[in-house]
C-alpha cells in the first residue's frame, strides 16, 4: 500500500492511531528504516511468524481499543523460543481479550541495542507541523533534551538539530564508543519532514526509540496519529 492508501484505510476505519504494522509500512514507504512488524491472528500464526522472523522476538497487542499497550499488559519482549512465544501470546490475550475480543498481536524481531534517540513530529496550534529530535528511550522525559524545527526542514536544519542538543557528544562517540551514523540520522529527520509535508493528514509521529548504530539506524517503536481533515 502507498502512504496515501495506508492513511485512507485508517481514516475509513475510523481510527486516528495507526496499528504499528501500518505505521511500519508507512515509514518504510517513506524510506525510513524501521523494524519489521508482522500481524498474527492466532497463537500458531504468532509462532510461525516468529520462526520466519528469527528469535528473539517481541509480541505486542494489536487492537483499536487497547492503545496504551504496555499499561494493558500487551507487550512482551525478548521471547527466545517457540515456548516463550506461546506463553506470551496467551498472557497478552488473557489481559486484553476482555477489552477487545478482536485483538491480534504483532511480531517483531528484537533489534540489537544502539544509542537510543527520538525522532518525532507534532502539529502545534501556532506553528503547524514541527519536527522534533533528541535523546530517546526512557530518559527522554527526565532530560527533555529535544530540539524542534518547523516543516519543511533543510539539510542544514537537520544538521543543526543534531549538533544543538545537549547530548550531542553521545552521537559523536564518547569514552571509546564509535560515533553513530550521522548521515543516516540526518536522512531520517529529513524524511520525516518530507513525509508529513506530502501527507498533511499525519498529525503526530513518535519514533522512540530509534536505535542509532555506527552504520545505519532503526526505528524500533513507532506511533503515528492521523486525522481525516488535514
Amino acid at each position, binding site marked *: 500500500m502507498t502512504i496515501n492508501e495506508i492513511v485512507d484505510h485508517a481514516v475509513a476505519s475510523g481510527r486516528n492511531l495507526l496499528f504499528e504494522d501500518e505505521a511500519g509500512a508507512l515509514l518504510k514507504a517513506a524510506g525510513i528504516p524501521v523494524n519489521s512488524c508482522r500481524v498474527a491472528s492466532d497463537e500458531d500464526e504468532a509462532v510461525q511468524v516468529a520462526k520466519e522472523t528469527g528469535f528473539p522476538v517481541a509480541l505486542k497487542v494489536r487492537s483499536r481499543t487497547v492503545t496504551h499497550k504496555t499499561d494493558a499488559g500487551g507487550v512482551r519482549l525478548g521471547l527466545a523460543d517457540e515456548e516463550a512465544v506461546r506463553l506470551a501470546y496467551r498472557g497478552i490475550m488473557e489481559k486484553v481479550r476482555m477489552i477487545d475480543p478482536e485483538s491480534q498481536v504483532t511480531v517483531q524481531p528484537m533489534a540489537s541495542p544502539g544509542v537510543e534517540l527520538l525522532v518525532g513530529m507534532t502539529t*502545534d*496550534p*501556532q*506553528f*503547524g507541523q*514541527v519536527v522534533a529530535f533528541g535523546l530517546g528511550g526512557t530518559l527522554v522525559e527526565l532530560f527533555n533534551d529535544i*530540539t*524542534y*524545527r*518547523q516543516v*519543511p526542514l*533543510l539539510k*542544514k*536544519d537537520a544538521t*543543526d538539530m543534531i549538533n544543538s542538543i545537549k547530548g550531542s557528544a553521545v552521537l559523536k562517540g564518547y569514552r571509546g564508543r564509535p560515533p553513530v551514523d550521522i548521515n543516516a540520522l540526518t536522512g531520517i529527520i529529513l524524511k520525516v519532514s518530507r513525509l508529513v509535508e506530502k501527507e498533511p493528514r499525519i498529525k503526530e509521529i513518535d519514533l522512540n526509540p530509534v536505535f542509532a548504530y555506527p552504520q545505519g539506524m532503526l526505528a524500533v517503536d513507532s506511533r503515528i496519529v492521523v486525522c481525516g481533515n488535514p
Partner: protein
Amino acid sequence: MAGTGPVDLRPVFYPKRVAVFGVTNTPDRVGYNVLESILHGGFTGKVYPIHPRHEQVLGCKVYKSLEDVPEPVDLAVICLNQYATVKAVESCGRAGVKGVICNAGGYRETGDVGHDLEKCLIAAAEKYRLPMIGPNTLGMINNDGNFYSTFYPLKIPAGKVSIISQSGGIGLTTIHMAIDEGIGINKFIGVGNCSNLGFADCLDYLENDDSTAVIGVFIEGAADAGRFVRTAGRVARKKPVVVYKAGRLAEADYYTQTHTGSSAGSFQLYRDILHQHGVFTVNSASELVAACKALALQPLPGGNRVGILTHTAGPSVVMIDHLAPAGCVIPPLHEETVSRVKQIIGSDNPPVVLKNPLDAAGLGFSRPTYGGLAEAMLADDNVDLLLAVYCLHKTWELPAIELINAHKKYKKPLIVNFVGNWQGCRADQDFMQNAGVPLYTAPEKTAVAAAALVHYGMRRKGGNDRDD
C-alpha cells in the same frame, strides 16, 4: 491580515489627515491623551477631533461626527469604549478611511463575550479592507512623519530602529531604554491583540520602509506564529530583526491570555524555530535595545572572531560567557600583533597579558597607548570586530577620538564598553554614537550587541541563512 492582496499601509503610518474619535477635556481619558500626543509630537498634517458634545478640546475645533469632517481622512484613531469602537470602525469603513487604530481593550483577552465582540470588530474592518492596529493597544508612533499617536504623549529622538510590541508597557520600556541608550526610534507599532494587522503584516511593511534599518520585536504569543517566524526570517535577509519572546513558563500563559488574548505557545518552539529562520533572539528588553543599537550604528563583521581590549579583566570574562554560546570565538592574536603591542607598551612596564583578551592593565588608561592597542588589534587579520573596555576615571578621559579614528581607519565593527554610570558617560556616549560607535556601560549588553552583529554578519555570508 485577511482578504486578497496586500493593503497599502502607508496612509496608516504617514497620514495627512487624521480623525480622533472620543476626544474629551478630561486629562485622564485616552481620547484627551491621544490628541495631546498628536499635537505635542509636532504632527504637520490636519487633525479632526470628534465628539458629539464637545466644542473644543486642547484648542482644536471638535466635530460632532465623522460625517461633519469637511474632507476625507486617511487615518482614524478610535479612543472609544469597546462597543462604540465597533460602530466607529464600521462608519470609518463606509467613509473610505484608509486605516484605523483601536485603543480600547475589553475584547478576547476578557473571555468569550469579549471574543465575540472582537469578531464583530474584525468583521467590520475586513468588510471594508480597512487595516486596523489593535485593539487593546498603546497606539503607534511614526517619528519619520512626526506622527505620535499613543495615549502616553511623547517626543523621542528619531532614528533607524523600529519597534513592534505586543505590550504597551514593554513598548514604553523599550522606548525609554532607547532614550537612555542614546538611540532614536523610527516607528513604534503597538500590535495589541493582532486582530487584523499582526506581527507578520507589520514586518512586511517595515521590510520596505526605507527609513527603518533595524527591527526590534517584543512578542508574547501569536495565533499565527508560523507566518510570523517565516516572515521575520525573510525580512531579516534584508534588515536585521531582533526578537524578544516572553512567556517562558506555563504560568505566564494565563497572563498572556488575559493581556492580549494570545496563548504564549511553547517558548522552546519559538526559540528553536526563530533560530531555524536565522532570526536573532534576546532574553530581555535591555538586550533588545542593546542589540538594535549596535545593528543600527555599526557595519556587520566579516566573521565571528571577537577581539577584546581591556585594562581590567572581569568584564572580558563576563563577555566571553555570553559570546561563546552565541557562536563567537576569541581568536589568538597574530605574532605580528603581539610584537606591535610590545612596542607600544615598552618593556619596563606593569605586567600585560599578551593575548586576546588583551589586558593592558595600568597602561590602558593612557589615551595614546589605548588608541594604539585598539589599532593594533583591529589591524589583526584574526579579528573581525573589537570590543574595547575602558573605566570611568577622575583624571583620565575616555580615548574617544582614538577609538573613532581606529574604527574609521580599519572599517571593522567596534563596540565600546565604558565602565561607568549613566550620567558619567552621557557626553561620551553622544559623542561616540554620533560618530557611529556604540557605547555601553554593562559588559552583558556589550556582549549581546557583539553577538547580534556577528549573527547577522555570518548570515550575510550565508552562514545561517535559508535557501527557501
